[in-house]
């Protein structure tokens, strides 16, 4: 029997606001415990929530970026449950009337495009955290994070493989950073996913029972967890067991998902509208204002690269995978560099190096003007592509060096002078009659060997394009 996999994702995106969603306390990460726990965070009696407009603005921004409806009227509700890191005994969230409804994100998985529908996105506050193991037999509570604004983004169950789920999560991760609403830091918990997984017999209309994998904060774990979960569910069903709806946690050490104790999830949250907050009303004017500040989205940039700059889709998607990379690329092209050569250099060389060193584009040691100069020298044929790579490596080691000085001191200047190249070609033809014969009898390999010979005696300085052109001319004439 074959099976269909059905996946939906809920993502908690931490919004980059200076202050918390319902108080003036700072959202700065990494401070000593409870440094940011103001009286509202601590739920002191008589304190009241006041909505942070910046969080609303960022939610609207997201809604516009996924072509969703922005609700004119949405409502904050209380989700009631007891937990030590939830100071009020309820979380302020949105329940029946969220701020963002019905958008979509288009993903590309192995060359196939697919629309993933976004059912809703709502604003809510984060909880604090319990800290175990510092004090004997006691649990510490750190409320720095309590009240940090979150946007919870919920998809329809539109994904049908772990690969699609990852493609969606990565795309979303890029988008929220692109539009400046989230720092995307997964280690710090700024972007975390709950993944709902179910399986059903291929082609069946009836959805299977789902299990929700909680709190995944790495794409690698997400893929492992989904694959494990899917196999587990199929095995269970094939062995004649029912799937019980539940919440599961992924253990990265064992690579397994495991259901939480039912007690931990048996909650009736008793949602009701929060009487301390007025309904959130958003005018068309607000929406238009935010729309005008949205800027180009990755999708449009991708089109520009593939259509206007004629880059291939693979390179284009790497360049728009991150706004900083895109901006870097654009500034290079704007300085007069060739779009394709520049793309090749960023994707092929720069990214390879950055990945090797686990660095982001911000951490690139090479100064932008040297990088531009390097590509210019390749474009104007002063040096060959290979010489360029050599210089790139040297610049990486010692960013204080200058491209032109390096070309001179290393003697990498390409010889494009006909009077210098032609004698070398004549010499090689004369010394290698066998190869010439082979070429004439149709062996292309022989031609490449002849080019190699010329390059060798030029000590790599001859312009290889020019060499092969002249050589071909000579051989076909003679």
């Amino acid at each position, binding site marked *: 029997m074959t099976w269909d996999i059905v996946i939906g994702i809920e993502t908690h995106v931490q919004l980059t606001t200076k202050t918390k969603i319902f108080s003036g306390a700072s959202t700065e990460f990494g401070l000593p415990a409870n440094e940011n726990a103001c009286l509202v965070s601590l739920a002191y009696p*008589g304190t*009241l929530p006041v909505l942070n407009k910046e969080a609303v603005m960022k939610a609207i921004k997201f809604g516009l970026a996924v072509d969703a409806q922005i609700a004119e009227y949405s409502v904050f509700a209380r989700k009631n449950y007891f937990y030590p890191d939830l100071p009020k005994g309820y979380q302020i969230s949105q329940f029946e009337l969220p701020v963002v409804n019905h958008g979509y994100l288009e993903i590309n998985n192995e060359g196939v495009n697919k629309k993933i529908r976004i059912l809703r996105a709502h604003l809510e506050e984060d909880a604090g955290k319990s800290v175990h193991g510092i004090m004997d037999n006691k649990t510490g509570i750190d409320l720095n994070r309590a009240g940090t604004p979150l946007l919870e983004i919920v998809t329809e169950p539109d994904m049908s493989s772990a690969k699609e789920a990852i493609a969606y999560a990565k795309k979303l991760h890029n988008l929220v950073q692109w539009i400046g609403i989230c720092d995307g830091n997964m280690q710090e918990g700024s972007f975390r996913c709950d993944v709902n997984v179910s399986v059903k017999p291929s082609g069946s209309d009836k959805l299977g029972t789902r299990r929700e994998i909680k709190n995944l904060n790495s794409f690698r774990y997400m893929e492992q967890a989904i694959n494990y979960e899917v196999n587990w569910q199929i095995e269970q069903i094939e062995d004649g067991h029912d799937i019980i709806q539940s919440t599961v946690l992924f253990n990265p050490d064992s690579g397994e998902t495991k259901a939480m104790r039912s007690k931990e999830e048996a909650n009736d949250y*008793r949602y009701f509208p929060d009487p301390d907050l007025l309904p959130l009303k958003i005018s068309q004017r607000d929406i238009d204002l935010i729309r005008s500040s949205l800027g180009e989205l990755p999708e449009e940039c991708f089109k520009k690269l593939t259509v206007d700059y004629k880059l291939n889709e693979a390179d284009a998607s790497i360049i728009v995978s991150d706004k900083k990379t895109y901006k870097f690329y654009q500034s290079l092209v704007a300085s007069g560099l060739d779009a394709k050569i520049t793309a090749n250099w960023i994707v092929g060389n720069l990214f390879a190096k950055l990945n090797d060193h686990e660095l982001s584009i911000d951490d690139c040691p090479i100064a932008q003007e040297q990088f531009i100069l390097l590509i210019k020298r390749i474009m104007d044929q002063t040096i060959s592509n290979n010489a360029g790579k050599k210089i790139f490596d040297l610049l990486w080691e010692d960013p204080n060096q200058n491209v032109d000085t390096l070309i001179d001191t290393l003697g990498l200047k390409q010889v494009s002078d006909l009077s210098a190249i032609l004698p070398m070609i004549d010499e090689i033809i004369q010394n290698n009659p066998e190869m010439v014969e082979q070429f004439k009898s149709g062996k292309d390999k022989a031609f490449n060997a002849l080019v190699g010979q010329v390059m060798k005696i030029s000590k790599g300085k001859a312009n290889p394009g020019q060499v092969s052109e002249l050589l071909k001319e000579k051989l076909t004439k003679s």
Partner: protein
Amino acid sequence: MKDLSLNELHQGLKNKDFSSVELTQYYLNQIKDLNTDINAFITVDEEKSIQQAQQADQLISQNHISDLTGIPIAQKDIFCASSWKTTCGSKMLDNFYAPYDSKVVDLFNKSGAINLGKTNMDEFAMGSSNETSYYGAVKNPWNLDFVPGGSSGGSAAAVASGMSPAATATDTGGSIRQPASLCNLTGLKPTYGLVSRFGMIAFASSLDQAGPIAKTAEDCALMLNVMADFDERDSTSVKRDKENYTQSLNASIQGKIIGIPKEFFNDELNDDVKIILEKVMQAYQSLGVNFKEISLPNSQLSIPVYYVIAPAEASSNLSRYDGVKFGYRASNYKDLEEMYLKTREEGFGDEVKRRILVGTYVLSAGYYDAYYLKAQKIRRLIADDFTKAFTECDLILAPSSPSTAFKIGDKTEDPVAMYMQDMYTISTNLAGLPAISAPAGFINNMPIGFQLIGNYFEEAKILNFTHLYQSISDWHKYSPGEVL
């Protein structure tokens, strides 16, 4: 001195007839003499009050004097006051010292008024008799065997007995007006949103509203001048221009119309109360006011609707009292769950627990639509009734309480009978409207008030009508000593 109005106290301070320290000491002595019997105060701190009075005297000596500068005001123990113990009448907060001032306390401090102490109240403002307080029942100064009403019973008893010239209070379902009625005082519940709820410990957020309890409408107007102020820390606070509530106290009400809701003046209304209210009407007639029968068809549903919505909000508002961060924590427990259970079991009284249970029930999955959602819909209908009624009249006359004060212990075993105490006051909380209770006379030597309800933000009109009534009547001038 105890019969002086706020304005007379102000004149006395201004003319240096007495200092704020002398005045404050006078009331502190009154408290020493009377509080043991009446139990109106939970916390008194002579040192703090006198210190504030000294500062006030300094201001007065520099001629920096506004209406309440130097005048002692008792604060209901629901308002957080920096470095004062703030208990809300509960064991749960017996050890709680707020590190901040509520907006109301802050405004009084800024006006130069003296915090005379924190008054007793029903636990978390849940009650109509002041018997649910962890700090013991408050006695009605008119007869110590009787309740003063609730939940602001401490504030009412403090003013009625002459321990304080005026007091702050809060009203969620009648907690200002019913004790005012039962203690021969004037108590105003303002429009929802007029007075900030910041730092006022929440019972039912969509209904809670702070207001004054004082001897007269004029005193209430002076108090409201201080209390009504926009506050960005309370999202439900309404931004509007400040009004001067004393300005129009004497405006003519000739030709105005008072609406008489037929649903309140029916067979259920106590005959004695009915006679009292008819006399109030005669007084208004002499002031040139006309009457018109109006209808509030959904008002009969107010009590059930209130006892769904208020407990629902309370059950959530009181979740923060879990022993983790502040307040009471049980001493022996083996794990987190037991700590929660024991803390809340030991820290809350019966009435609070009853309402948490009801509130939790009506919000539960499967019951929400039938109770909470339906109650919210009826609440809207109740508000609509008033909106319609105010197209036909200026104010609405109603009883404040169904009867005079009852004996301590009489209704403690019958919560529903206790809940009926608020049958004439609750609908205005549900609608968010302003209303006043003012002295209307006595039945068997115990006082009772009448209620005037106004349209949104018509506090000035309510105070105007009440002040004119008080200018031709004497009921508000009686104090317990004279009757007993």
